[in-house]
């Protein structure tokens, strides 16, 4: 009952949220919501013990593919988004053949190289990828009427509700995967890979599965972003953006499902709301870096640990104040 109330309250807050924000904050909220799915999907891959540097590039594959399907094959945007996600998953499957011949640090470097190859292909081929300038004037999500409600997806609040629905379903799916035997096998592949292998688990196949699923959701993020922003270029999916995803995951912590999400929200609010709001426009990289160092020094288990401790303390306080029977 308490859990159901929590989810209902959260849903109410998320639905009401845009009403309490300015237009530019609503714009930020759209990108933040997309990034939450991006970092949550990244965590699925890390469950198997592998950290990739190609996740943001794979997100770009979804963006490019969805934009191109909509532009060249007149595919309706919602369908092209799904096709973009499928294409990202397909590209990940192809990449998995060479990449999962490696593990650990070698996989990390291999994934970086693979991502750079994809980015170079976007740069190199002006047709169809638009070269360094990328794609512009990407087909927007069409407006539609739902009874008395009119949704114009140029407006951030409207697009936020679309993104919120997609991200909620995606997060639920990721959660279910993690809690299913598939997710438990991912954990086994990470922590006991030799034992799992001895028990007949095809470790490479399970790592590939995690990589493909995570990439599919990353591709969906790219598609959601591209059709809102109207542009996709190789620079937007570079290693710099990947560092942000890594930072969200590290600062938030990857031990729990909500850890990276916490990291993403906290750092985005810090960077785009607090520091800008304080007028530290140009000092943001320095302040952001300082916070990261402090977080690593004093919160080595991430924000998720801080939250867990706070919840334990609250529960403890609640138990102490309960009257004796």
């Amino acid at each position, binding site marked *: 009952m308490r859990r159901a109330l929590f989810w209902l309250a959260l849903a109410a807050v998320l639905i009401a949220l845009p009403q309490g924000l300015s237009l530019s904050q609503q714009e930020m909220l759209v990108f933040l919501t997309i990034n939450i799915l991006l970092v949550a999907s990244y965590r699925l891959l890390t469950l198997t013990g592998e950290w990739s540097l190609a996740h943001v590039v794979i997100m770009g594959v979804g963006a490019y593919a969805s934009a191109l399907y909509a532009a060249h094959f007149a595919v309706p945007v919602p369908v092209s988004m799904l096709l973009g996600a499928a294409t990202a998953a397909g590209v990940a499957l192809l990449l998995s053949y060479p990449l999962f011949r490696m593990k650990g640090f070698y996989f990390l470097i291999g994934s970086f190289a693979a991502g750079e190859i994809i980015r170079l292909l976007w*740069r190199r081929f002006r047709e169809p990828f638009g070269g360094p300038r990328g794609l512009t004037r990407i087909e927007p999500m069409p407006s539609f009427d739902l009874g008395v409600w*009119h949704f114009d997806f140029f407006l951030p609040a409207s697009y936020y509700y679309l993104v919120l629905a997609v991200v909620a379903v995606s997060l639920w799916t990721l959660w279910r995967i993690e809690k299913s035997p598939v997710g438990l096998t991912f954990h086994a592949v990470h922590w006991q890979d030799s034992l799992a292998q001895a028990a007949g688990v095809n470790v490479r196949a399970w790592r590939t599965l995690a990589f493909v699923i995570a990439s599919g959701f990353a591709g969906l993020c790219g598609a959601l972003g591209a059709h809102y922003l109207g542009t996709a270029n190789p620079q937007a999916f570079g290693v710099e953006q990947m560092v942000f995803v890594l930072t969200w995951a590290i600062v938030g912590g990857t031990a729990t499902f909500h850890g990276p999400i916490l990291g993403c929200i906290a750092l985005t609010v810090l960077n785009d709301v607090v520091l800008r709001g304080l007028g530290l426009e140009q000092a943001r990289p320095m302040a952001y870096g300082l916070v990261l160092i402090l977080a690593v020094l004093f919160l080595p288990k991430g924000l998720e640990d801080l939250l867990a401790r706070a919840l334990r303390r609250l529960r403890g306080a609640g138990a102490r104040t309960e009257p004796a029977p």
Partner: protein
Amino acid sequence: MRKGWSLLPVTRRRFIGGAAAGLALAPAAARRAPAQDKVVRIGFLAPLTGPVAAWGKPGLDGCRIWAERVNAAGGIRLADGSHQVEFVPYDDEYDPATARVGATKLVMEEGVSFVMMLGGDPWPGAQPVADRTGMLFSTLLPSDLGPDTPTLIAPAEVHPVYNVTAVDWLAENRPELKTAVMCAQDDALGLPSVATYLAAFEAAGIEMLEEPILFDPATTDFAPIVTRMLARGPQIVCLDTCYTDYVHPICEQLFQQGFRGQVLSCTADFYDQIIARTSKEWVEGMLFQFPDFDDPALNADFINFEDPNGFFATYNERHPGEWGAVSWEYASIMDLWKAAAEKAGSAEPAAVLAAMKEGGKGPHIFGEAEWWGADLFGIDNALVGNWPVVAIEDGKARIKEFRSIPAWYDRHGEILKKWMTEYGQMWNQR
């Protein structure tokens, strides 16, 4: 969810009205409104941090000096009286998503009357906001222009077309130089500039010894690139529109690898640092396109910039060692905007744009210029006239001559269009 978000056509007023919640919690703008009756706010949406900040931050510093001077002289005189000028900066991080957020904030919440951008990658992010609101935007990169962007103007620099003036000058003054090589970063700034230099070299009868080397913007080691360029024994090494972070190490490598010929570049920002990394003798004669504003040539009657020498002195006093290509450019755009707003008697974007383009001519910083560009950009929204050719002499940038871009284009326009097409840079190819 709210009812009534059908906003076609959308005006700023209706946009804000349709999102009442957003307006209700846009406290900063709302609180300031009563005090802003006599203030015109100008948005500055450019990279203020990150690798491209060198083409944003110095511009903002220049604008603040410009605003102080204009405000001290009584402000902008519109039909309803004098208005002080206030700049509202937003760091777009050279990222389209951040640019969209910034454009929304500036136009919808800060109530700006005009938005200045560097342009390039961030522009497509801001473009829908411009389209929907009719806000007047400016860019330093005319390659952003297109027939579907009627409220985007390029009134300061016509990058990269002005690069032809230095090549033209070189061909006339150093006719013995007949061979060249070129390198550039493979991006939206580098490629149109490559096409322009190729056209200028062809028009000047200078032979390219090999295809331009296009390097990845993430490149940090330029030794192999310089080695490859010098292997053909060129007389001219052209650095295209390389960012400052590339120009300096490339010059250092050219110096270390023994090149003693002519260096040609679009920019040579912070050239004192290039001198420190090479030598005063090595830099002597380096040609580029952006003058220091203590140059006596800028005191000529046809220059449309108030007291350039004083502006330069103030700038260097406040930001020593930070003078660069864009330090004056955004301020010069503001000169043009101010003149048009005063002519229109209003800061409304449509009225200012109409006043600016009246008669097809305008007061460009380097003299009277014409609204031009339909051929290359699909729309006459670039203000084009003369541009300076600058050389480093005795460790100091000096204007050698002002040359006419339209005059060059009249003679060699077809060559430029050929190379722009070859590199996919014509407006209808983008």
